[in-house]
């Protein structure tokens, strides 16, 4: 981490009022994020996932599992993305698939953030043996083959979005912990932290009030990139037929397309495009956030 300046120190002061209710710890970051084309496209795609995922029951014209129309019907006015071999509406499947992806993303982020930030802060702030121990454990999780682990878990315990989210959440925090640790290490000795310390604040209070808000944006960059990879892994599981058969998912739909590749292109094209758009959105947001924070990508 070459540059760990808190966002406020580099923000252009007085250009205009900060966005109200900015999600980040520094409203300026969100505004600078949305000033970049990649930020706008990225945030737009992520917002689309959230909206479609939340509103799926109202947006989908049909039950995605209902046998509704003719078998393998190409895209048309009635079936915008065509139908599958059983005559199920693919568009409704894509809409409900967003819900599954959203659920996985939220679950994994929550776990990764809590574990990664806790371990990273502990390691960076305490240092010494605690730091060594935390980083050894993190290294172990970095080399653990997550995808194979997920396959073994599905094979032994059965499929399920929650289960996959747990596997990815409990194994993917290590990179985030490293990033947070590096941030905390560089923030620990800075003037504003020392000022708080001199002002009599205790360690816990300094971490929560001074260090974490400044370390979090860097962590969010990695969280975005990580979630993209997690979505791709989950899609691969679905493609292999290892996803929950009662929950629509894009990977599952893509796997269904495989035997019909030469006769029903739409079954393969739309689920893959949905995954691409979502992962692209997360990656672009992370890229733009890196730039908005004034770091080299």
């Amino acid at each position, binding site marked *: 981490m070459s540059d760990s300046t808190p966002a406020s120190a580099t923000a252009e002061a007085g250009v205009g009022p900060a966005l109200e209710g900015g999600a980040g710890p520094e409203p300026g970051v969100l505004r600078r994020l949305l000033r970049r084309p990649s930020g706008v496209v990225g945030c737009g795609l992520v917002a689309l996932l959230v909206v479609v995922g939340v509103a799926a029951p109202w947006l989908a014209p049909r039950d995605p599992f209902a046998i509704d129309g003719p078998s393998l019907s190409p895209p048309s006015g009635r079936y915008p993305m065509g139908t599958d071999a059983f005559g199920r509406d693919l568009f409704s499947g894509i809409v409900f698939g967003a819900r599954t992806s959203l659920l996985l993303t939220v679950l994994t982020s929550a776990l990764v953030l809590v574990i990664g930030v806790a371990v990273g802060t502990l390691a960076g702030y305490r240092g010494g043996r605690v730091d060594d121990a935390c980083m*050894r454990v993190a*290294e*172990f999780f970095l*080399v*653990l*083959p*997550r*995808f*194979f*682990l997920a*396959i*073994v*878990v*599905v*094979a*032994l*315990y059965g499929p399920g979005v929650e289960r996959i989210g747990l596997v990815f959440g409990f194994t993917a925090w290590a990179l985030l912990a490293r990033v947070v640790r590096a941030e905390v290490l560089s923030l620990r000795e800075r003037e504003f932290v020392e000022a708080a310390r001199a002002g009599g604040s205790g360690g816990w209070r300094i971490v929560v009030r001074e260090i974490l808000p400044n370390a979090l944006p860097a962590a969010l960059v990695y969280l975005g990139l990580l979630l*993209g*990879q997690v979505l*791709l*892994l989950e*899609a*691969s599981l679905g*493609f*292999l*037929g*290892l996803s929950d058969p009662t929950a629509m998912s894009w*990977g599952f739909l*893509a*796997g269904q*397309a*495989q035997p019909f*590749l*030469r006769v029903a*292109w739409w079954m*393969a*094209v739309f*689920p*893959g*495009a949905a*995954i*691409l758009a979502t*992962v*692209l959105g997360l*990656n*672009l947001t992370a890229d733009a956030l890196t730039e908005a924070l004034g770091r*080299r*990508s």
Partner: protein
Amino acid sequence: MSGRYLAWRLFLVVPTVAGILVVGFVLVHLAPGDPVQALAGEHGDAEYYAFMRARFGLDQPLLAQFATFAANLLTGDFGRSFIQGRPAFDLVAERLPATLLLISASLALASVVGIALGIVAGSRPGGVRDLAVSGTTLALYAAPVFWIGQLVILLVAVPVGWLPVQGMTSPGSTSTGLAHALDVGRHLLLPALVLASQEVAAIARLTRTGLATELASDHVRTARAKGVAEWQVVGRHALRRALLPVVTVVGGRTGHLVAGTVVIETVFGWPGLGRLLVTSVGSGDRPVLLAIFAVAALAVVVVNLVTDLVYVRLDPRIRYR
């Protein structure tokens, strides 16, 4: 590279390997469902169940089972396949060459294509070619690998006609020698290319960033001022240093590549470990599952180790304690 660093780095492998084995073993043995029922059917009599349990060592306490497992592992014994009755290690060993062939071909393709694209983009940052390459790699990086496979089959293989999309050899082929190698190569091309796609994107992006940074640095400006030809500036002065981090990425992404093979082998019917893994999941063949998990994890650990050592050797700036 000091001998102490080498020894320390080698020592760090021990707890990692032990941890991986414990994770695999615990997962398998805490799983619901009785493997004996999967073996002997649901309606076998108690005596037969007991016989099967004893035969596969399933009547032992958990700790004893782990001790047996760990000891067996040191001799390369993963137990017998529940389904085929043969040693799980043999099944894995049979499939390993096909997967290794696919992975090494992909890695070679990804390095060559990725570095080439990175040079094209990074030698003129902000230019048209940079934008084209950056856009493509961005999309490749975000696309699911099975989708790229499906699109390649739809848009390339089907129209072209002579590029096979299933299997490793032509059906009923009995060719040997050069003809056999050519046949395998023809089958290998598309899966290897598709598997390489995300690595190409990662390598190209990193090469581009590194090259662009190096080209803006003082030593490159000096070389240019001295009148060194542009291709020499890029090739000799900038690229060498820009490629250092690429080594780490190529090594560090082995996990992704190994995971990708499972999917690609399914898309292209490639008879490797990935196919074996998927069929073993379907049949609940725990020894084979565990063997593949262990082999994949060990492979990642070994490649990471080698990557670290190569990197330390390549970059004289790094000094370890």
